Structures are given as structure tokens and as C-alpha cells.
């Protein structure tokens, strides 16, 4: 099981700030695909992904107990 932290529009879309997910062993890329299919998350290409408070690439493999944050870049200012 891993914990997914949602920020900004992802949080709004799901309506909560965290979710549990049985996705250990898969890559970040695969996680994104699942999120796209199951929750119709958009624009996952430009989202930043952090595991345990460290940015990772799409190739990173997810491990049991990881805390994964999806951080959308926003442009406002």
C-alpha cells in the first residue's frame, strides 16, 4: 500500500487530500497511466512527482509504504 498526496486541482477533482493505493512494484509512469484511466486525471505529463519528499522521474519504482505527492505546476502570480 502507498499513500498518495493530492494538491490543487487533483485534490479538487477527487475531493480529498490523500488516497491509499496498492501499487508497489510499479513505476511512476504506470501510476500515472492508472490515474489517467481510473480517475480521468488530465495533463499528467507536466505534473511533478515526489516520493518521500524527493522528486523522482517516471522510471522510479514505487515501494511499499511510499508517500507519493502529485504536484501540478501553476502559473499564477
Amino acid at each position: 500500500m502507498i499513500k498518495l498526496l493530492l494538491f490543487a486541482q487533483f485534490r479538487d477533482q477527487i475531493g480529498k487530500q490523500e488516497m491509499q493505493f496498492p501499487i508497489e512494484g510499479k513505476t511512476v509512469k504506470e501510476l500515472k497511466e492508472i490515474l489517467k484511466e481510473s480517475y480521468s486525471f488530465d495533463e499528467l505529463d507536466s505534473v511533478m512527482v515526489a516520493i518521500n519528499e524527493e522528486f523522482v522521474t517516471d522510471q522510479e519504482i514505487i515501494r511499499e509504504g511510499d508517500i507519493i505527492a502529485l504536484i501540478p505546476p501553476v502559473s499564477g502570480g
Partner: protein
Amino acid sequence: MKRYSRQTLFSPIGVDGQERLRRKHVLIVGLGALGSSIAETLTRAGVGKLTIIDRDYVEESNLQRQLLYSENDAMERMPKAEAAKRRLNEVNQDVEIHSIVGDADVPLLERLAPNIDLIMDGTDNFDTRFMMNDISHKFHIPWIFGSCVGSFGSTFTIIPGKTPCLQCLLKKLPMRGQTCDTVGIIAPAVQMVTAYQTAEALKILSENQWALRNTYVTFDLWQNQTLSIKADSIKNADCYTCGHYPTYPYLQYEATTKTAVLCGRNTVQIRPATSTNCSIAVLADQWKKAGYKVSANPFLVSVLKDEHRMVLFKDGRALIHGTNDITIAKRVYHSLIG
């Protein structure tokens, strides 16, 4: 130096640090919510010289979150750079304010860069940020990214030759349509971003680089979330901006957003740097939620904002009807798309 006594009493700055601040020249790109707050803080702090750039004028809807500006500025439609300068001069005459009413484009940034010690991000769009990112690395100037929308914000301090750059973080230009004009913004989110940005600025300007944060901070003040994320491992040795063989892609003509006035049509065309596949449905939905009049078909979406109508095509190209003025057209475009 009685004026800065509370800052020189702070021991990591001290009298020497204050003198170092006084010798520095900071460029602030954009004077909206982030930029105006940064400008006020650095002026009060006694930085030697600020160059401030903005293409826009003050509007009533800015006053809710943009420091420095008064009702009078909005009534007179004062250019932000001029209105800001006027207030900054009232606040601290010691600081030399060089104001530029205009577009922060590549030629302007290249001309200014050689004399700049630090670049502060006060913009509202990634087009300009990717240019700043290239300028920063080409001229070896640190820059401090900041952005916010709703109650959400992010910031990261970019040091050429040391940290990853904005390209390493984002890979490509995001295009999402979440802007202050579509989902709103609360002032405390602005202030929190600029508190982080200006703290880092004071470290750099007083030459306390050892104290820099080294993490990407992101927060949501309404949801009470904060994350501080290590970024070292995503520094990309092949990055075109900060890698071994940089080409500074956003300084090339091909990579800049193109604008063209369509003669006799009272219309400006904007063609973004990279042809993105924008999700017209998502944008249309967001604009509808924000209360704009929207109509869409599979090929384009049309949205009415005040007296301007913008038509956005699937390839990212946009027509802004109702103006011949490129500055106004860009403002409409970035306020709706980011």
C-alpha cells in the same frame, strides 16, 4: 544606518551584510501580486538598485492582493511599473528604482542581464519563466521561481551550476488554464510565496548562500498542507539549459511566443513557443466554472472576457479579437491560459 537597525541586529546579516545588500542590483520581472510584494520587501530592506518590469496597468481587480497600488492608480490606469516606482520612492528614497513599462522579452532581458545580481520571478506565465531560466544560466545569475493560484503556491531557488533548473523540474511548458482569472487567488497565498522568495533573496544578497533552502516548497494554505521536496536527483546533465552543452532554447527565436496583429481585423494572433496539444474540453470547463461565456467545438473554443473574445485552437494558437494591441492580447491570453 538607523533605518536598517532591526536588520543589522539580525546577526547573519549584520552591518556587513547590509552593506552587501546596498551594493546589489535585483531584477524583478512582473509586478502583479508576487512582484509588487517582492518589490516592497526588497525596497524596505535597502537593496541598492531594483529594475522592475511590467507591461500591464493597474486595474480595480488587482487591488485585492497587489501591494503598492491604490484606488487612484486603478482609476488612472497607471502602468504598474510606474505606480510601483512612485510608491517605492515614498517608502525608501535610498533605493534606486529603474522602471520599465514593457514586455520582458529576450532582447530586453539580454541587455539587462550583465548588470544584475539576482532575478526575482513576479510573472504569471511559464513563457516568461522559461526565458528567465535560460537568461539566468547564460549569465550565471541566481533566480527565484514563485507561483500561486487559489490558496496554493510553490517556490524554488535556482542557482546556476548547482541546483536543477526549471527545465529539469518541468520538462515542458505546462498549459493548464488554472490562473488567478479562472480559479481565483487569495492574498495570503501570495504573501507566503513572497515570504519564502524574499527570505532566500536576502540570503543571496547578503552573501549567506550556506543558508539557502535547497528544496522545492509547495503549500496549500486553505487545506493546511506544506511539502518541502528535495530536488537534487532530478538535475539533468543533458538539460539544454543547465546541462553540459547548453543551447538556451528559450532564447532562440523559434522558441519564443509569436504575436501578429491581423490588419484590419482588430485582432491579434498568438502562437505559443511549442505547439502543445491543449485539452480544449478542460479549458472550456474551467472557464465556464469561472463564469465566462464559452462555446466550443472539437477544433476550437471561444471565450468572452470583458470586451475581448479569444478563440483558442487545438494546436495552442489563439486569436484575440477586439484589440490591435499586442500587450493587451498577451494579457488576455495569459490570464486565461497561464
